[in-house]
């Protein structure tokens, strides 16, 4: 069997470079799979499809990190509407004002130097 042409992380980053939040879907288990993997942990099958999220989610848990140098910043777990959870941060709002249950929308934090792009979130328009 030929080696895989790309890795799960490689595909994920390619989507981010196009401004997309990619995730995997296991048709046999009928669930979203995140982080991306080579096999579905529910079925053991390598039958995994890549899908693009609509980018909407809800804050599941939130904290504010106080670094020894620099400003405090948010770290949150976001439940994405398509049925998976990921770590990220909520921007455009004071970090302590991020609330569990808040609706948020995805955007890409562009690659900088050696650091690849990564997904961040901002409060969705029309939410309190």
């Amino acid at each position, binding site marked *: 069997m030929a080696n895989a042409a790309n890795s799960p992380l490689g595909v994920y980053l390619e989507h981010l470079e196009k401004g997309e939040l990619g995730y995997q879907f296991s048709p046999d288990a009928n669930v979203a799979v995140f982080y991306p993997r080579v096999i579905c942990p529910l079925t053991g099958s390598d039958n995994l499809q890549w899908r693009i999220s609509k980018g909407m989610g809800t804050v599941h*848990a939130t*904290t*504010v*990190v106080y670094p020894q140098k620099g400003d405090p910043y948010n770290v949150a777990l976001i439940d994405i509407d398509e049925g998976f959870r990921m770590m990220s941060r909520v921007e455009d709002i004071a970090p302590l004002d991020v609330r569990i249950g808040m609706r948020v929308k995805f955007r890409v934090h562009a690659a900088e130097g050696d650091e690849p792009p990564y997904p961040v979130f901002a409060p969705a328009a029309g939410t309190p």
Partner: protein
Amino acid sequence: MNGLTRGSAAIVGAAESDIGAVAANMSPLDLMAQGIHRALADCGLKLRDVDGIFCAATQARTSAMSMCEYLRLPSAYTDSTIVGGSSFEVHVAHAQAALAAGLCSVAVIAYGSTQRTVGRRQASAREYNPYETPFRPFLPSTAYALAASRHMHEFGTTREQLAEVAVAAREWALLNPVAWEKKPLTVAEVLSARPISYPFTVRDCCLITDGGGAIVMMSAERARGLAKPPVYVLGCGQTITHASISSMPDLTMTGARESGAAAYRMARLRETDIDVLALYDAFTINTILFLEDLGFCPKGEGGRFVSGGRIGPKGSLPVNTNGGGLSYCHPGMYGLFLLIEAVRQLRGECGARQVAQAETALVHGNGGVLSAQATVILGTQATL
């Protein structure tokens, strides 16, 4: 079923190495060897009696191999399973199995860390996780803070209730001559301390100390002839629900539910039978989660349960009588110290902090970020 037999093995020796701030250039292996030396002296055995090495360390990648060299034990049975701070509770189950299978007859479980001396970053470097590292979580604190945020949201747990855990630990520590912290602590002082990762201040977080130690295990039959009364392994259980906090299935429900249920089942005991508890308190939320998940109070009630000093020296449920990872000692991985304190309580060696008529102890180890949960139930001869 885990295949282990209630009471088939016993802890016969237990000791700390130097702890707190150790001498310059002391290595983690030095501390393990010192712990082994003291634990063997505790039970009257010699180094040449040892034929099983169980250990884990963040500063020694192949810790069992290094200890075999250090101690010149080329034929020892080895196990350096590492699942974070609960590794040593897992080692107890593994050692019990190895003793039953005849793979070894005298097993030592050892740990050493010079985390305070060399700095946390150097002592336990973090692996890059492309799905978490970009967000700069201050791990492990941030992961536990996320769980705490969820517990506060779902159950109304307050920062004051979290602080009660730290205050109780401090009150116990004041009764332990070797505890790192020596001054009283109030809820107000916890809340106003330097913030780390909301809702935690530095007083919600475990200490950063050096330290190590060892325990010695043997089969129950061979344990009976030794100097001190054996402490029997009545029950064991382990569960690994995730490795990274973003993959934890439920932030307010830990694997302690399953590991505890397995340990109670093997021990044929329930929570009301337990006299003294040692719960891995890396952060104040831990104690609350584990009291709930091990059945001492209903889910969500942990914050109210710990209020009013219930788990302190004047309370009704003795938890973390050495002062815990919050106030006694926390050298990176703390699980071995839970076992050492439980052994001492069951032997009646704890002086001012001794729990009266302690016959059973529940030790609960936690590894990673609420990831690897391992419960061990210990008992005196009277519980067999």
